[in-house]
């Protein structure tokens, strides 16, 4: 009976694999053009990255990354539909073709890149795990946290990183695990733990939810690398290139000083780098399979990388994140894009 069952399951899997491989004859770009819109997988609500606003419009840096790709293909930032996905189903949704791009603050790791049939196209936000502490415990550095009680959200890699970090430093900690981020903050606010750990991009927002934000501070330590970026299916190199170079175009635009406001003037620029970027010279678009002026349209409608960052997560937003690692390489960060030529 068991054998028969496993054979049946195996047959179903093989059948699925066969039909999948025969049906994928059309490239992703072709099928996206045929649909008339881009299908983009996002989170079901993470401030600054992807969250619906009061009118039900998606906003956030991950959302804008998808919009930029839609602009490059259709010239229209609205030609994109968003599929909210949970952490568990995000990779399946991409593998099964339900979405064309996954832009759901997904960490680039070897396992995901090499064994899941996925390709990471780049990094639109360099994140890392940090600590929010109660000032009362008088700690200035994470190495002094021996014996601390730590509030964590369940089911995230944060839990694993935390255990790794404390083990490597030979320190003890007592975890208190919560189900949602609000509960985690409540736990921290009510004094059940001394330390709250999460991705640094979220710590400032969590801190602002405290009744007295000045009673807590964020430690300078970053205990893990979390490069977040868009993901596509493996095996369609053209699509991979398009998504990759749309983000590179935005980063290069910032480096060259091309912004949403001045992009029209920049069309007359003598700088050959800008000419190639905006499509007034060369055939960069044709090489990717998108319109020649895709660079101009992306910057015009979505902005360069810096504008996208500042609008969604930058110092003037509620998240209030400094550029830090995400500054351009010329400004002391590590945002660096290969040249357009």
């Amino acid at each position, binding site marked *: 009976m068991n054998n028969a069952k496993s054979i049946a399951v195996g047959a*179903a*899997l093989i*059948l*699925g694999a066969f*039909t*999948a491989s*025969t*049906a*994928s004859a*059309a490239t992703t770009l072709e*099928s996206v053009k045929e649909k008339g819109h881009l299908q983009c997988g996002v989170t*079901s*609500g*993470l*401030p*600054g990255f992807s*969250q*619906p606003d*009061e*009118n*039900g419009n998606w906003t956030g840096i991950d959302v804008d990354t998808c919009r930029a790709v839609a602009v490059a293909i259709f010239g229209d930032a609205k030609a994109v*539909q*968003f*599929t*909210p*996905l*949970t952490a*568990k*189903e995000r990779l*399946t*949704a991409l*593998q*099964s*073709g*339900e979405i064309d791009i996954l832009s759901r603050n997904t960490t680039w790791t070897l396992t995901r890149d090499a064994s899941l049939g996925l390709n990471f196209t780049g990094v639109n936000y360099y994140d890392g795990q940090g600590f929010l502490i109660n000032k009362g415990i008088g700690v200035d550095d994470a190495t002094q946290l021996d014996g601390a009680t730590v509030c964590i959200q369940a089911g995230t890699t944060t839990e694993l990183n935390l255990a790794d970090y404390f083990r490597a430093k030979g320190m003890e900690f007592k975890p208190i695990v919560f189900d*949602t*981020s*609000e509960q985690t903050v409540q736990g921290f606010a009510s004094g059940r733990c001394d330390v709250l750990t999460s991705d640094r991009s979220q710590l*400032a*927002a969590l801190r*602002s*939810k405290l*009744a007295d934000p000045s009673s807590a501070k964020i430690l300078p330590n970053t205990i893990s690398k979390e490069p977040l970026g868009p993901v596509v299916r493996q095996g369609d190199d053209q699509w991979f290139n398009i998504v990759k170079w749309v983000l590179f175009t935005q980063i290069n635009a910032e480096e060259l000083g091309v912004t949403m406001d001045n992009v029209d003037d920049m069309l007359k620029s003598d700088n050959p780098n800008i000419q190639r970027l905006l499509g007034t010279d060369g055939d960069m678009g044709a090489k990717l399979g998108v319109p020649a002026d895709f660079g101009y349209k992306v910057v015009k409608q979505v902005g360069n990388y810096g504008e996208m960052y500042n609008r969604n997560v930058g110092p003037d*937003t*509620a*998240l209030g994140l400094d550029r830090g690692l995400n500054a351009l390489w010329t400004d002391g960060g590590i945002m660096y894009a290969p040249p357009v030529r």
Partner: protein
Amino acid sequence: MAESVIKPPKKQLGPVAWMRMHLFSSWYNTLLTLIVGYLLVTSVGPVLNWLLLDADFKGSDPSDCTGAGACWLFINQRLNFFIYGFYPNELQWRIDVMFALLALSFVPQFIENFPGRKWLGIFGMTGLPVVGYVLIPGGSFGLEAVDSAKWGGLTLTLIIAYIGIIASLPIGILLALGRRSDMPIIRGLCVVFIEVWRAVPLITVLFMASVMLPLFLPEGMNFEKLMRALIGITLWQSAYMAEVIRGGLQAIPRGQYEAADALGLGYWKKTGLIILPQALKMVIPGIVNTFIALFKDTTLVLIIGLFDILGTVQSTITDPAWQNVAVEGYVFVAFCFWVFCFGISRYSQKLERKLDTGHKS
């Protein structure tokens, strides 16, 4: 003559007598009354203050929430999103029409002697899904198509619950009849179906529908996620419904079956005219119980990334621009669910009384 009518003694009628009888009839009842009274006085005040008196209703942005109470302004601002989800603004009249039809079909059921209420009820069970099928997704009769990914909020909750309820009842009846059938193959199939689906948690069904199923389907051939979830929920719910109805079928005395046979009725006439009307009437509380459970279980679609009312609220309460609106959000969701579940429950009690033909002792 009027003077000669003697009023009953004050100790046996009126509020004082009522209190003496119900609240202070013995020393322990007096003690309980005092304790409960104390708890009510100390808790009702702060709750009312938070809910209404100190709460903020008006304004335009988070800084207008200054009081110590609830910040209903947040709900007010996002209400459109909580009700319609991502449904395009200019097309929301279609949802409004559906809400109106829903109310028109079911509210009269509470009003005795409302003209044509039976027909309104029948329309609610049969016509309404058809109208909804045309109106909400659009794409025909010149209506602009709206992708199911854009449905959300209370609308989506109602759609899932309504379809789950409407579709699972007939399937459940058939399964229950099948399970009691004399034909071994049909009986076997029904038993297997019911036992398999009933043994699986709804979360697992939803995960299978959203995560595993797409892997088995060929690339490019995608059911919509909502469709997959709806099928899963309906099948799962049918299994429960079948068992509730089977309880009713088993409670019908054997004589009823034999009497129907003696009249020369065939299987379908016997079932439709004699057995089912009695059996269904008997299990109304059970059926409604499963309906209400399903209505609340629809929130589980949250874990597969569908934005039902709880999903829309949860996705917005993390907005850093608003401070601590989580409680307001959850209270709002709880209130919405309470309104609908309480309505269903009241209706079922009414139906029970109306259909009661005195067999119950």
